[in-house]
């Protein structure tokens, strides 16, 4: 019976491991994208801020 349990455990460890690895990779990429989005969103504001600062000066 032990080898039967081992067989099923191995199969499902592989299968669910694949799902978890995909979800983990997905989250990693999404967090990287979020960081980049923040970077892109901040860039025009910095550019916009410069003339405004000049105007105030």
């Amino acid at each position, binding site marked *: 019976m032990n*080898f039967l349990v*081992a*067989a*099923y455990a*191995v199969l499902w460890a*592989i299968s669910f491991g694949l799902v978890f690895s995909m979800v983990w990779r997905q989250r990693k*990429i*999404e967090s990287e*994208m979020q960081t980049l*989005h923040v970077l892109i969103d901040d860039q025009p504001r910095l550019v916009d801020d410069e003339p405004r600062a000049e105007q105030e000066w």
Partner: protein
Amino acid sequence: MKQKKDTWLLVLTALGAVLVMVAIYLALVRAPEASLNSETGRYAQRIIYFHIATAWVGFLAFFVTFIGGIGYLRTGERKWDIIALSSAEIGTVFMLGVLISGSIWAKPAWGVWWVWDERLTISLIQFLVYVGYLMLRSAVEDPARRARFAAVYGIVAFISVPINFIAIRMWRTQHPLMFGSEEGGLGPNMMFAFFFSLTTFTVWYAILMWHRFRLEQTRDNLEQLKQRILD
């Protein structure tokens, strides 16, 4: 829209996990015992409910890689390349499952973990061929070139599927023939658990494909974003 899709995928994944639990219950508890002499043999026989279903998903996945390759060469659209890649990755993992579960069955049934039998050897070669596919992809830098090479490789590699399938019919191998044989094989009362397992694995494959496809699309978006920043 994206959030709705993500919720759907989450629900489907949970549903798939439940189906898996039911399939395990059917295979281990509900399925009738095989009419074999040894107790070990009767237990070992229960591996086939998952072993065959895993092999089926492996073959299906490689067929989808084959279709993805043809689709990419015909249209040049990235989505076909993603389909081929996703399917090859899942198929390779499932083929590894086939080799491991078969080996675990072989120990009590044949007394050894592995024999260099035609069927087993072809299965191992097939697994290595698709590992080669994934290695090829990681070795080519240019995306268009990588997709083209992979498409051709995926189409040619698919030859291994029919060869593997007919191996037990063409050669006198030790591997048992589950369907169409007069001795051994699956009895009619084992069919429900078997087909339930087969359906579960097919649904599971579809769920995995969705996950993998989504991952690759997000990766593409990330690359585009990086390019935008660099420009």
